[in-house]
C-alpha cells in the first residue's frame, strides 16, 4: 500500500477522534432535549478565540487558558438553553433549530466584529513524530487521545452516576421522567452544560491544530450534524463509528481527489445512508 495513503488514513483516524467528541456533545443535546444546536460548531469557534485571547494575547499558560475555555463554554451552554431554548421548548422542534441558527449568525458576525476575518493561531509548534516515512502531528495524536478519554469519561458518567442515569432515562421517555422524581429542567440545564463543556474541550484540541477565524464553524459544523444523525439518536457507539467512517471518507477522498470533493463524497454518503438506514448506522 502507498505510504501516503497510510498516512492519510492515520490522520483520518486522528481527526475522527475530535469529530466523535463533538458529535457526542451534540448527540447528548439532541437525544435528551430533542434540539439541534445548529450553532454548536460556533460555540467551539468562540472557545478557540478565548484560548487565543488568553494565551497569545494575555500570556496566560496554555493549560489555564484551556481550563477557562472549557468552563466558559459550559456556562455558555447553560445560557443558550436558558435564553434561547427554554422559552420555545413547547413549540415545533424546527423553531428551536432555527433560533440557534440566529445564534450562529450572531456569533459569527460578533467574532468578525471583534477579531476581523484574519486567521489567527496560537503560535505553538508541536513536534512531528516520524514513523519510518510516515509523519504524524503530535497535536493530532494528543487531540485524539484526549478526545477518547473525554468520551470514555462521559460514558462512565452517564452509566454510573444518578444524574447520568436520569439523563439517559429522559432521552428514552420525556413524559414519564417527572413521575420518577427527577427534575426535568435541572437535567436539561445539566445536559446543556456538558454539551457546552464538550465544545470547549474540542476547542482546546482544535486550537492546537488549526488557525481560528470567524467562519471556522462552517467548515466542520455540518459534518458533526451528519455524524450525529448517522450514528443514530442517543447511540453513543454508533456516533463513534460514524465519526470514523466519515473521517476516513474525507481522508481517503482527500488523498485521491481533493478536500472539497472528499467532503462532497461524505455528504452524499450521509444522504444515501439516511435513506438506507434512517435510524443510524448500527441500527438493525
Amino acid at each position, binding site marked *: 500500500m502507498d505510504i501516503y495513503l497510510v498516512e492519510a488514513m492515520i490522520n483520518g483516524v486522528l481527526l475522527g477522534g475530535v469529530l466523535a467528541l463533538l458529535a457526542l456533545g451534540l448527540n447528548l443535546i*439532541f437525544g435528551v432535549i430533542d434540539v*439541534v444546536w*445548529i450553532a454548536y460548531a460556533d460555540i467551539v469557534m468562540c472557545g478557540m478565540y478565548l484560548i487565543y485571547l488568553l494565551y497569545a494575547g494575555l500570556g496566560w499558560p496554555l493549560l489555564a487558558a484551556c481550563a477557562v475555555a472549557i468552563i466558559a463554554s459550559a456556562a455558555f451552554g447553560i445560557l443558550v438553553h436558558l435564553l*434561547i431554548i427554554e*422559552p*420555545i421548548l413547547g*413549540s*415545533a*422542534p*424546527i*423553531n428551536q*433549530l*432555527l*433560533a440557534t*441558527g*440566529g*445564534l*450562529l*449568525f*450572531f*456569533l*459569527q*458576525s*460578533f*467574532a*468578525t*466584529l471583534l477579531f*476581523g*476575518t484574519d486567521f489567527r493561531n496560537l503560535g505553538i509548534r508541536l513536534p512531528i513524530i516520524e514513523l519510518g516515512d510516515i509523519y504524524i502531528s503530535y497535536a493530532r495524536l494528543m487531540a485524539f487521545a484526549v478526545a477518547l478519554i473525554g468520551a470514555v469519561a462521559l460514558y462512565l458518567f452517564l452509566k454510573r452516576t444518578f444524574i447520568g442515569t436520569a439523563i439517559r432515562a429522559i432521552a428514552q421517555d420525556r413524559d414519564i421522567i417527572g413521575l420518577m422524581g427527577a427534575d426535568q429542567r435541572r437535567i436539561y440545564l445539566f445536559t446543556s452544560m456538558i454539551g457546552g463543556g464538550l465544545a470547549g474541550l474540542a476547542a482546546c484540541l482544535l486550537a492546537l491544530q488549526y488557525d481560528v477565524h*470567524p467562519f471556522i464553524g*462552517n467548515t466542520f*459544523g*455540518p459534518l458533526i*450534524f*451528519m455524524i450525529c*444523525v448517522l450514528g443514530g439518536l442517543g447511540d453513543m457507539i454508533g456516533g463513534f463509528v460514524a465519526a470514523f467512517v466519515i473521517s476516513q471518507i474525507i481522508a481517503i477522498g482527500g488523498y485521491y*481527489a*481533493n478536500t*472539497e*470533493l472528499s*467532503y*462532497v463524497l461524505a*455528504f*452524499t454518503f*450521509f*444522504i444515501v445512508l*439516511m*435513506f438506507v438506514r*434512517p435510524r443510524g448506522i448500527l441500527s438493525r
Partner: protein
Amino acid sequence: MTMHPALLAAGLAFLVAPLFAAGPYVMHLLIQILLWGFVYTAWSMMGRFGFVSLGHGAFMGLGAYVPALLWNYYGVTPWLGIPLGVALAVLLGVVIGYPCFRLKVIGHYFALVTLALSQVVLLTIVAARDITGGSLGLTQRAAGFSWYALQFPDKRYFYVIALVMWLGGLAIWRAIDRGIGRQVLDAVSEDEEAAAAIGIDVLREKLRVTVVSAALTALGGAIFGQYLMYLNPETVSGIAVSLQIVFAAIVGGMYAMLGPTVGGLLTISLNEGLRVAFGTNFIGAANTIYGILLVLCIIFMPRGILGLAERLAPRRPRTKTVAAE
C-alpha cells in the same frame, strides 16, 4: 379576497413609479428586494407546509451557475441555459424529495438532509475551481446590452424582470392557495396518516410543491446571476444562503402571501441601513443585530410579522397600523 380596483391601480402605480423616479442606488435595492422576495416566497411554498428545507441554496446555486457556465464556455444563450438550470434543480429536488417523503424523513432530519444537499452543491462548485473559478467566483462574459445574452446595463430592465417574476411568484402562491392543493397540503401537514387514509396521494402532493419551489428558487438564482454579473459560491449557495432564506421568510411570516416579501424588505433595508450607519469599518455589525433579531423573532412571533398582524387584526379591526407593531 377581492381587491378594490382603486387600491389595485394605486398598487400598480406604486410598483411602476420607480422606473421613472428612482436613482440607480434605490433601483438596486428594489431589484434585490424583489428578487429575494421572490426566492423567499418560493421557499415558503414548502416551508409553510412544514417542510423546512435548508437546501434551497443548492437550487439557487444550480440555477445561477448552469446558465453562466454555458454562456461563458459555449456561448449558449441564457434563454436555453436558465431552463436547463431550472430543470436540473427540479431533478435534484425530486431526487432528494422522493426518498425523503417516501421514508418520512421529516422535521430535523429533513432539515439536515437538505443541509447536506446544499453543502454538496456548494463544495462541488468550489472543487471544480478550474471551471467555476472556485471561491474566487465567476464573472459572466459581458456582451453589453443584449437580449440574446440577457444582459442589460440599464437597471430598469432588471427592475421590470424582477417585478414580473415577483408578481408571478405571488400568482403561483395564490394558485396553490385556491386549488385543491392547499387543503390537501394543510391536511398532510396536520396529520399525514389521516390524510393518506382519506385517499390523498400524500407523496405526489409533496413532490409537486417541492418541484415548484425548487424551480422558482433556481429561476431566482439565475436572474440574480444575470443581474449582478458575478457569482460566488458563498453568496448563491451553501449553508449561509440557505439559512438566510429561511430566516427572512420566517421573520416576514411564511404563512401569508406577502410575508416572505416583507422579510426581504426588512432584511435588505436592515442590512443597508446598518451598513450606512456603521460604515464598512464594522463588518459584521449588521449580522450581529440580524442574528439577535432572528432569535427574538422566533421566540416571540414564530409566525412572523405578517402572522402577528393577522392575529391582531381581527381583534382590533379599526387599527390600521397593526402591521407596525
